[in-house]
């Protein structure tokens, strides 16, 4: 009786946490998966794998860190495993034509799509931890939180973020700004 009474309560906490995380960070998980996997079908599997790992992990969530930190750690760790597995089986993936964002009639939108495609191409060439830092930066995460999620030193993260800003400024100022 007590067992039957305890089990659903644990599950419901796990389910609630998952629902909250999926609702708040669903799009961020999709963007993260896009940065780690160029192939659309494999990417869908990766997204599902992240969701399953998240749901499983919430059975052990103790609130010692924020939900956001927990989620990003799980998601990036699943993605890192994926990168290692993929590198072993077929080498780095490439962006297919189908994966480029939809073309738009508006110049501004076309320009943004081009920048996004270039940004994605740039990110997908990075080493896992550098990729993680730039992804978290692009998601608007501050340096202290990036350090907490990744385990990298604050000094290293600050230097990396500075470098990322520099690289983004150089790469995305130099090309694709024809109308300016």
């Amino acid at each position, binding site marked *: 009786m007590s067992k039957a009474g305890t089990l659903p309560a644990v599950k419901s906490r796990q389910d609630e946490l998952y629902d909250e995380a999926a609702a708040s960070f669903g799009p961020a998980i999709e963007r993260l998966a*896009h940065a780690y996997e160029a192939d659309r079908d494999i990417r*869908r599997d990766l997204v599902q794998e992240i*969701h*399953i790992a998240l*749901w499983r992990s919430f059975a052990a969530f103790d609130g010692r860190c924020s939900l956001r930190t927990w989620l990003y750690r799980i998601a990036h760790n699943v993605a890192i495993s994926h990168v290692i597995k993929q590198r072993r089986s077929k080498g780095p993936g490439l962006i297919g034509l189908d994966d480029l964002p939809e073309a738009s009639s508006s110049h501004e939108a076309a320009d*943004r799509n081009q920048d996004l495609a270039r940004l994605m191409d740039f990110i997908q060439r990075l080493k896992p*931890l550098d990729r993680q830092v730039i992804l978290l930066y692009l998601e*608007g995460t501050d340096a202290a939180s990036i350090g907490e999620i990744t385990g990298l030193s604050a000094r290293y993260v600050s230097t990396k973020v500075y470098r990322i800003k520099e690289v*983004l400024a150089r790469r995305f100022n130099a090309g694709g700004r024809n109308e*300016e």
Partner: protein
Amino acid sequence: MKNESPPNRMQEIWQCQPVEDTKMSVEEIRKRATKFGKKIFWRNVREYVAGTIAIVLLAFSIARSHNVLDRSAFALLIAGMVYMMYQLHRRGAAQSVSASAAPGPSLEFYRGELKRQRDLTSTVWSWYLAPFVPGLVASAVGSAAHNLHPWHIAVVTFWYGLIAAFFVLVWRWNARAARCLQRMIDDLGTME
């Protein structure tokens, strides 16, 4: 928008990119988690079945052979196969634990994954290749002993030499991969 600095603009472009909406209910997640577990189970079953078939074929060869050297060679190959399968099982179990992703910082997780890969590749000789060496040596001696004609000895030497070269190649390739992984682990030390 056009006056925004590129890094801020890239943040905005990144966060506003169109994404697929992969919404899964908890029920669906639960189903998929079970399905995923079954997939791993059947993959393991396939590997064990393949190993068992090889063992059965070798056992069949023992039953058919009347030569002591040949029978010893097959028995040693079976022992090697069993040991290798046990190691695969042990190391595979460790992998499925790490693949479920720990909630620790990524640096720690990444280092752990690299170390696991390094240990797997650097010890490939001891758990993947060496278990077959006694059986192969006994098999080579047995094959040569059937016929001591120099031409036959040369053919046996050639074929077993090819196997030996393959073993050395696998070992060297893995040792190189292990060194590369070690360099990656060392690089991580500078990030802390």
